[in-house]
């Protein structure tokens, strides 16, 4: 028994890849998920970007906006170009809706005209309803905004609510006596935000009415959601299969001697790498197509209504994935090393890049870190195609980044492959 333990220990001690998979990978994953869910010491709630359209321009709306701007969990914008300068043009309703549809912000709040006046009259939550334009791909943001709007109303304008309440009272029970009026006037300033008094104990029924509007107006929400997960899982497995293929077509050829034989033919190393890459890209496109087709047939994924965007994203994703796999294979000294290293890299990129957990639900810092990964750009592109029904030209940032990554990975592969050329 001691001998077996000793054999196991010696083998593990000398197997660097095994050590990394045993000890390093769990730590990496723990750190990633702790960062994603734990907020890395930031607010526990991820910062939500929200646009506000102020159609009311009343004292109430100004105070509500100010209250929302003070919320640590929100990043408020009032203009179309995210420029806080006072010269920027304030958002109107259609621009606010467009910001959500394009994915710039997950929610836009429209404070309707007449809210402040109605509030001053009734004080009990009557008047026109606020509109929240929401992207249902982020299920948390609209609910959180609705709650914060109630809070903002309550905390921002208790004095206005009281005034409205007194007016309501007077209309039904008669005018206040001069002594009562004097007492109310002396008390109201204390209700203003920053005043001496508090506003605790305001009845929940005294809030504002909020209408949440799904701007995507997706006919098939389930199908669109399936497409998101198809892209997430598809990209992760594309990377796994590409690395497997690269190991098969390159490192196996090194080990079997066929690469040496190929290098003695008319092909140069560049020709060999290009041929391998083209083959892998074709396999990758076929793999993603089969997966989305399955999603269409079994889960109602709307593939055929999004074919052009799907093929653009699939081609550039497969191109970049194959190039990354080729670079890893040329860097690795053996198939075992390639397998161990790529498993760590792919799982890490998939976790950070949104293949396992949607990036828009991560903290802002983690979302930015995610942009360093291959997966994030590919998934953002698929999201634009299937969720936002974006026209092809709007895919240019994702396509540009993925093509640039393709070129960089291929250049890396060519550089690393020099070790197999004439010594």
């Amino acid at each position, binding site marked *: 028994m001691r001998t077996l333990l000793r054999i196991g220990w010696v083998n593990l001690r000398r197997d660097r890849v095994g050590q990394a998979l045993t000890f390093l990978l769990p730590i990496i994953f723990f750190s990633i998920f702790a960062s994603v869910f734990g907020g890395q010491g930031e607010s526990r709630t991820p910062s939500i970007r929200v646009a506000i359209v102020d159609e009311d321009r009343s004292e109430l709306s100004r105070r509500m906006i100010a209250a929302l701007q003070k919320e640590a969990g929100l990043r408020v914008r009032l203009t179309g170009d995210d420029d806080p300068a006072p010269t920027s043009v304030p958002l109107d309703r259609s621009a606010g809706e467009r910001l959500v549809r394009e994915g710039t912000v997950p929610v836009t709040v429209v404070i309707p005209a007449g809210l402040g006046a109605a509030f001053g009259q009734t004080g009990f939550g009557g008047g026109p309803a606020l509109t929240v334009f929401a992207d249902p791909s982020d299920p948390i943001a609209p609910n959180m905004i609705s709650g914060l709007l109630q809070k903002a109303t309550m905390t921002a304008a208790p004095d206005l609510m009281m005034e409205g309440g007194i007016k309501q009272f007077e209309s039904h029970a008669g005018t206040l006596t001069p002594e009562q009026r004097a007492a109310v006037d002396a008390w109201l300033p204390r209700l203003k935000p920053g005043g001496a008094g508090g506003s605790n104990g305001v009845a929940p029924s005294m809030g504002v009415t909020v209408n949440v509007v799904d701007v995507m107006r997706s006919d098939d929400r389930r199908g669109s959601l399936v497409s998101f997960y198809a892209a997430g899982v598809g990209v992760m497995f594309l990377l796994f299969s590409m690395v497997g293929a690269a190991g098969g077509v390159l490192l196996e050829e090194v080990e*079997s*001697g*066929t690469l*040496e*034989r*190929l*290098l*003695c*033919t*008319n*092909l140069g190393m560049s020709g060999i790498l290009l041929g391998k890459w083209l083959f892998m890209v074709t396999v990758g496109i076929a793999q993603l197509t089969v997966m989305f087709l399955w999603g269409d047939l079994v889960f109602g994924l709307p593939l055929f209504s999004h074919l052009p965007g799907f093929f653009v994203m699939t081609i550039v994703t497969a191109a970049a994935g194959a190039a990354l796999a080729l670079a890893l294979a040329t860097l690795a000294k053996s198939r075992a090393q390639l397998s161990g290293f790529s498993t760590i890299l792919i799982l890490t990129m998939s976790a950070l890049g949104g293949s396992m957990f949607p990036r828009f639900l991560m903290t802002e810092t983690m979302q930015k870190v995610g942009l360093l990964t291959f997966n994030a750009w590919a998934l953002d592109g698929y999201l634009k195609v299937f969720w936002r029904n974006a026209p092809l030209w709007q895919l240019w940032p994702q396509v540009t980044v993925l093509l640039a990554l393709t070129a960089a990975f291929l250049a890396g592969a060519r550089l690393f492959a020099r070790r197999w*050329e*004439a*010594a």
Partner: protein
Amino acid sequence: MPVLTISSARKAFGKVLALDGASFELHQGELLALLGPNGAGKTTLIRAITGRVRLDGGEVRVFDRVVHGGQTPRELGIVPQEVAIYPLMTARENLRAFGSLHGLTGQQLTDQVEWALRRTGLTDRSAEPIKQFSGGMRRRLNIACGILHRPRIVLLDEPTVGVDPQSRDHIYDVLGELRADGISLLLTTHHLEEAEARCSRTVIIDHGKVIASGTLAELVDRTVGRHRLVTLRTDAPLAQGALPATIEIDQVDPRVLRARLSDVALELPELLSRLHGAGRAVEDVDVRGPSLQAVFIHLTGRELRE
């Protein structure tokens, strides 16, 4: 005129000097054995000939054209030590793939594939996946892939390693047919008996230098000499003083005697007569000529290299 000339080839990998001025020639239609202990520089030399190693000094010429690093001359066919073929493809598919990569197309490709299959005796099995092939068949296919484009020089790196005697004979028959076609062959092997029996000339390399080259007779003359080793076994041991000092008595079995005779016809009858006179019957006699093995050990020593 030699078809392949290696002149003062030098190559170092870091501090390790793999080639240290190696020089030799390969002639038209010749089967030349390149021998040497492990780590002597054989593989580096073969790779230098194919352009896969850039020499630090000296040069390689193929048909009087200098071979530059990174460029494999088209006249060369290479049969690597590894069975460098695609195991999930059939023999014919492998040959068509490598033929295409050597620039063969159309009818020429088809004809060459059929020729290579015939030459290596694989025509009947050409449609089967390689994974069903025996070790010998894989080795033959490995050769077929190397000769497919009708090279004028073929480099074979241990082409018979790990195959049975029948397959080995078949492989040498193929090489003999190639020689008959005027193709020149350079072969590395650790089977010295094969090299002795099949090759027209031998080059022995050690520590990156060519330490001997020539026919077996030339090598024998220059090293161990043409003595024959005679081993006799008698029915009973003999006392040490009963025989001349040139006759060695085996330490383990004193009935076994060894003698190096320069003229067997003259000296062996005399030795037998002397034993008979001493009252001993001779049970067995073994006469051996000088072998390539003896020459090799004489030149490279008995110490392990790795």
